[in-house]
């Protein structure tokens, strides 16, 4: 398992995340896609920590996880709010800002 393998995996994860972000209509799925992208980034942190030595990468990954948890909490709260106001969690329902 080399550095390139790990980075390729992270890129693949990130791409899957973007794909999900752009194509899903369910807000929960979009949130999951965002999680994938965040974890791809965490994977890059850990990878460089593993191959270049030092602990900063791992520490950053931990911080990032904590932030992601907070983000998910806010995101899910928004999902619940969307469900309450629109009766569903499809993202295209929330288009009141349209001109």
């Amino acid at each position, binding site marked *: 398992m080399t550095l390139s393998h790990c980075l390729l995996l992270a890129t693949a994860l990130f791409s899957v995340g973007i794909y999900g*972000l*752009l194509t899903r209509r369910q807000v929960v799925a979009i949130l999951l896609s965002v999680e994938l992208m965040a974890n791809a980034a965490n994977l890059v942190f850990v990878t460089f920590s593993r191959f270049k030595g030092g602990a900063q990468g791992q520490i950053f990954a931990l911080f990032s996880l904590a932030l992601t948890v907070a983000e998910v909490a806010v995101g899910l709260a928004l999902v619940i709010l969307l469900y309450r106001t629109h009766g569903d969690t499809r993202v295209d329902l929330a288009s009141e800002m349209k*001109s």
Partner: protein
Amino acid sequence: MSHAVTLALVALLTPAFAALFLAATPMIRRQGKPAAAITILGSVVSFGAALMLFLDRLHSEGTERLVVPWIHTGGKIAAEAGVHVDGVSASMLAVVCFVALCVQVFSLGYMHDEPPADFGRYFTYHALFLFSMNTLVIAPNLLQLFVGWELVGVTSYLLIGFYFKKPSAAHAAVKAFWVTKFADMGFLFGLLTLFVASGSFGWTAKLDPEVATAVTLLFFLGVVGKSAQFPLHVWLPDAMEGPTPVSALLHAATMVAAGVFLVVRANPLFEQAPTTRTVMLVLGAGTALFAALLAMVQTDIKKVLAYSTCSQLGYMVAALGAGSVFAGFFHLTTHAFFKALLFLAAGSAIHAVHSNEIGQMGGLAKKMPLTAGAFTIGALALAGVPGLSGFFSKDLVLEAVEGKLGSIPYVMLLATAFLTAFYMGKVVVLAFFGTPRSEHAKHAHEPDWSMKLPLVGLAILSVVTGYFAGPFAHLNGSHYHFHLGLGAMVAIGLGLSGLGMAWAMFNKGPREVAAITAIDGIAKSRAVNRFYEYGFRKVTLVLSDLLAWIDRYVVDGLINLLGYKTIEAGRAMRPLQTGFAPDYVLALVVGVASLAAWAVLR
């Protein structure tokens, strides 16, 4: 501080304090009588100082000044403010303060029936006027003179419009203001030209001939407005809407003479501009004759005197144009006394008869001998009867003009002398002799002492001033010897025959005279006024409409177009905002990807 300077400052500032005090204390001003007392006290002090200054100047030479820096430009002092005492300013100051004091005392009786608040306002304006006029007279440079010039313009406006509830008075005030302000633009541009050319506002600069001509011609435009010369004389007859003492002080004796005073003051500049002097000679003589003709046909006693003032100012301007500063200035002085006397005596008659119309008077000499005597003395002085002040000064003017420009102005002024004697004779005969032609005239009686006293004072000066021509000339750096030349004899003859003709024609009461009726037709056409009205309507208003159209449709149109295009652009870009979150995310991803690609590939 020298003695002379102190006196000048006292004369200048006492009325200023009186005016400021009355302006700041409405409680006192609205009581009327106390306000009059304060103003007159200020004028008494001012006149006392001016008289002492005049006597002091009689036996001391040179000029004295006290100035403080006023306007700084580029580290240099561009103009100073203060007092400048010499023969010219000292004699003018004494004349102004004396006439002002007489008029203010006269006003005590004349304005007696006004409500106290108006009475106080009237005297406050008078204090302000005296300060303004003294500022002008005592000015150490032409810029301060200009400030005084504008201040007397404002007080003139206030006093003409004193009965501002009367539309004709309000209109007359505005008209006087506009016409003189138009002329003052000339004065102002002249001042700026002078400053650019010589670097100061002094009147002693040596200029290039062309510049001197331009500056003095611009100054002369201001003079034409202020001293009511043709064609800007139209405001002066209308200014008679003001109270009669105001007409006596501002519109006969002092303020309108400010134009002449300016030429006297700035004589070193005018000396360098022969062209301007020629213009002055022609315009002055023309105005003298023109206004005298119009004075013949007026039925309102104040209007006669107003046109007569225009005419006499024309005499002064012609004398200055002929190069004789002393003749012009001396005629200004004597005219100030006898014309103020005429106006005040007319005011006394008007007060008794309750009308300005000569047709309502008649036979007043029996009821009010003092008024009649005063008016007659003034009229004889104005007509140039030998022995009275007007004779000496008019003779000087005629002597100065004689032989200039092929003697045409001289002949015009001689004709004016005849007409002057005729119309003054007519007024005296019709108003004071014969039989009363109205109820009020039958029961007319002399006014109280406050109106008699100034008449007596001015009458004495109207008689004797002529005999002080020698010292007066000395004071103004000139010489005077009396000699009875052929010209003077002709003038005397013309004056006496004018008076005689008036007596012969009118001693049986008013009657139609074909020549006068013909002139009346011309006067009634109001040609000059109508020219201005026509010009205003056809030029100013049309131009204003055009500019309004440009403003509305071109300037505003461009701004509106810009706003409209902005709105349209916004509307065109609205579809970009879909409100659909994945679209924004796509834009974000594309943007980030583009930035990343740029970062890698550059």
